[in-house]
């Protein structure tokens, strides 16, 4: 395993080495909350971060598996295309924002705007998520084992939201939907990939787009 110590290596040297790597396992020690750690990775490598990170950890990731033994700052896995980010601690605001693919697992809580504008990523949160999560989410799955904050799924497109606990409020055009056999199968798969123990697919409720905002409703013309 190759080790980068951020008390001596510069962030740019480290990210550049990881971006050029095509295989192998790497560890990053003393991250000390630095921004943009393990961004723009392109290959099936394994990266372990020993500690907490700042903004944009594992942003734009492709194929790499990144494991954070700590918490992550705002924008973790932002615009991830594929691969996996596992966070042992908490995630700050807008984790998984605009992510197109791959899997994001947060074993603690995720704060506000989790999965905002997600475009195909699968996000599994073991704890709670904050307000305005999955705002304008377009595609992919968000599975929450705890509670969701205010305005879940506001202006939602076709992403699927599964919540085990309480939802403080639903956003505009988001409603609860029936859990069919195909959804139980999706949830079972997410629970396994998200390393969730002690929850059953039947425990979750599904939320999705009411599809009332897709077309202009002439009855609302007086509002403009």
């Amino acid at each position, binding site marked *: 395993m190759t080790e980068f110590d951020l008390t001596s290596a510069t962030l740019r040297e480290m990210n550049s080495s990881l971006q050029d790597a095509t295989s192998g396992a790497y560890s990053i020690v003393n991250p*000390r*909350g*630095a921004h943009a750690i393990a961004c723009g990775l392109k290959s099936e490598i394994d990266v372990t971060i020993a500690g*907490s990170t*700042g*903004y944009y950890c594992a942003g734009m990731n492709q194929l790499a598996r990144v494991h954070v033994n700590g*918490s992550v*700052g*705002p924008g973790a896995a932002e615009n991830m295309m594929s691969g996996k980010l596992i966070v042992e601690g*908490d995630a*700050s*605001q807008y984790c998984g924002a605009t992510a197109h693919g791959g899997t994001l697992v947060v074993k603690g809580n995720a*704060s*506000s705007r989790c999965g905002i504008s997600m475009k195909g990523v699968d996000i599994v949160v073991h704890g709670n998520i*904050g*307000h305005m999560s999955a705002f304008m989410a377009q595609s992919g799955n968000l599975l929450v084992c705890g509670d969701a904050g205010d305005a879940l799924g506001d202006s939602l497109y076709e992403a699927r939201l599964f919540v085990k606990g309480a939802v403080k409020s639903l956003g505009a055009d988001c409603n609860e939907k029936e859990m069919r056999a195909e959804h139980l199968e999706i949830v079972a798969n997410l629970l396994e990939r998200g390393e969730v123990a002690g929850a059953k697919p039947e425990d979750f409720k599904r939320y999705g787009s009411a599809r009332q905002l897709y077309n202009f409703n002439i009855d609302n013309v007086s509002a403009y």
Partner: protein
Amino acid sequence: MCGIVGLYLKDEALKPQLGRLLSDMLVTMSNRGPDSAGIAIYSDAPEGRAKITVQSDEADSAFGVLEHALNGKAHITRRDSHVVLEVAADDVALVRAEIEANHPAVRIMSSGETVEIYKEVGLPADVVDRFEVRQMSGSHGVGHTRMATESAVTTLGAHPFSTDEDQCLVHNGSLSNHNRLRQKLQQEGVKFETENDTEVGAAYFAEKMRKGASLDEALEAGITDLDGFYTFVCGTKGGFAVVRDPIACKPAVLAETDQYVAFGSEYRALVNLPGIKDARVWEPEPATVYSWGV
């Protein structure tokens, strides 16, 4: 952006290190705002005494004239462009009136039994060096590095703002209803030094507390009355509090151990604190007041 740090000590043994710990935290936040920096440090004045911290751009001449005018009433400690006037608690109003009436080049940064405020245009590293903040001891303190959005880059536009005895406020964000609120407070007799939005926030909280609200109650009321983006850290004589607006875009991290409570705009600011690896670290919830020592 803007960067905020705060440290509230529970363990008296850390008091001599307050200035050093807070300085390191603030310098780490430098790239969140390069315009100006400031620090408020709370340390007790001797029994029956109070402190007035003043600043002047013409320090050499203005402070000489002030010292002469005070005629032995104050014990004076100069730090670069600031001096701390330690006076009898009963003389605070008199000394303030003398400064306001006869010393236009001298500006009052703070007054109270415990607080001292130092702030200037420039980077945090330069500002903490100029005022020798690392050598300061105290019970709690807050620091701010500014990226100006709402008013000019000047000494008076730097944070922390203090609008009442021993009170201070630092802010990351921008208020959108500060003009209307300033007018309302002016009608109630509150005076303002700047066009800055944060000064209005500080004056609003001070006015609430003057009318009997606790620090918590004042901040709770602000969630309804202040419109805009904010992460606030507020200090009082013995208290320390944090509140974020309901949207909570502006970042905030709290850490607590048996020895201290620490606040940083980012986790980076906290990584050198003793015992941080075992601290409880969390992100304060939106529209929720957190306070200690109140």
